[in-house]
């Protein structure tokens, strides 16, 4: 009898609290990946060594004290809140985003479990795209392909109307319309780059018609499973620098950018989890997740952030 195989990889959990260690070990153990558990940063560094396939899961307080950790070799560095029902501290998240952390989980259990397992599996499998990874089986996915730039308003209005039609509150419909508008605008006007990397559509008049074919195709998908509402926007340029997105989203970054570049920070502020997937020169995917189970005040004040890069075909 031969057992099935799990994706190769190794996970190291660093948390000072023994109960949290056990919870996290069980959680990522669901990937059937070997899991090592340590209590402090020094032991974590020793356990990771030079293993570029290892995934480090670090208590946010430990990470906040050593934000430079994520510069060390590893497949990924993921900051998580501590044990219990407390969200990650908003200042810790800010510090980590500014420092360039690509995976910061804000919310406590049980959201932590769903989010962390999906994140670790995406990393292990190298399968980074698609909102389906956040939805329970059975959730229907609605998809729209924009045929012209001017379809943006229709797409936004349609998705907001559809979301309310399934019974979600107007508040969620309002958030969805802002997020969809900003993500589609980014895909239409910020994503296209020329050979020098210049964003040649950024100054286009927004009322100007432009047929969306080839690399200009923009798709919008959404689904809900009554836990989350997921909204996904894809462009075919892959021009977003996935390593620098987090720093632009940090609340402290907003303090100095009240005049411009507010689209992504606004989308981030309106959701509970923002996920960026990128394949250089091929595709950028933005997924915004709204947790519709809980009152907003029962979740983290700041949203989680994840940035994945697919490296199979390019980059």
């Amino acid at each position: 009898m031969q057992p099935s195989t799990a994706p190769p990889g190794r996970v190291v959990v660093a948390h000072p609290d023994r109960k949290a260690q056990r919870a996290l070990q069980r959680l990522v153990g669901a990937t059937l990946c070997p899991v090592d558990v340590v209590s402090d940063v020094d032991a974590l560094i020793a356990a990771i060594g030079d293993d570029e396939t290892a995934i480090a899961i670090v208590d946010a307080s430990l990470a906040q004290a050593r934000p430079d950790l994520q510069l060390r070799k590893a497949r990924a560095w993921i900051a998580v809140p501590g044990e219990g029902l407390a969200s990650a501290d908003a200042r810790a998240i800010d510090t980590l985003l500014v420092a360039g952390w690509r995976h910061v989980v804000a919310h406590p259990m049980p959201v932590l479990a769903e989010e962390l397992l999906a994140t670790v599996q995406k990393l292990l499998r190298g399968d980074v795209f698609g909102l389906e990874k956040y939805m329970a089986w059975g959730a229907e996915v609605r998809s729209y392909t924009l045929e012209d730039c001017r379809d943006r308003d229709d797409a936004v209005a349609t998705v907001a109307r559809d979301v309310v039609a399934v019974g979600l509150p107007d508040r969620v419909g309002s958030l969805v319309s802002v997020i969809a508008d900003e993500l589609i605008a980014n895909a239409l006007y910020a994503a296209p780059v020329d050979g020098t990397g210049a964003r040649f559509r950024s100054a286009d008049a927004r009322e100007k018609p432009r047929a969306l074919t080839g690399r200009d195709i923009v798709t919008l998908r959404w689904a809900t499973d009554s836990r989350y509402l997921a909204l996904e926007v894809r462009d075919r340029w892959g021009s977003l620098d996935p390593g620098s997105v987090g720093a632009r989203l940090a609340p402290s970054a907003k303090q100095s950018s009240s005049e411009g570049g507010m689209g992504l920070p606004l989308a981030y502020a309106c959701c509970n989890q923002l996920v960026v997937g990128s394949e250089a020169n091929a595709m950028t995917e933005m997924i915004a997740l709204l947790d519709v189970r809980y009152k907003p005040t029962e979740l983290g004040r700041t949203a989680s952030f994840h940035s994945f890069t697919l490296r199979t075909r390019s980059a």
Partner: protein
Amino acid sequence: MKRGRLDVEVSGQRVVLVGRIDDSVTLGELAAQLPAGALVLDTAGVTFVNSIGMREWIRLTRALAARGAPVTLERVADVMMTQMNLIPELRKTVQIASFHAQYACPSCGAEATPLIDAVAHRAELRSLLPPLVPCDECASLMALADFPERYLMIFSD
């Protein structure tokens, strides 16, 4: 007058905005077309604001603030409150007299955006304490459906 998809109605010192504040709107030069002196801006009819719209809103409030006369916002739409709290400079350039806030009822699950009198509740709001509001459906006390540190930040010192 019409600004993109935003209707601007001026009646004495009162300016009523209805519609969308988005890419179609330029508001920076609107200040020059509004009456001199203290102004009241009513935005209850604003249904949508995106990041470019918020940039235009900042330009308008800056231009009005530069005239030196007070600018009071009345019946601020919920969609605007969410975003105005992201912009620290708005705490200094405008005074909010009333606003629509997101509330949820812990008893029956209803959600609503009641109008909050920011003048009557000034002390509570400065302390980031949301006023108590009864639910229209079951009369239980509703709770602010957002973090006070985030949704009421514009009232803090």
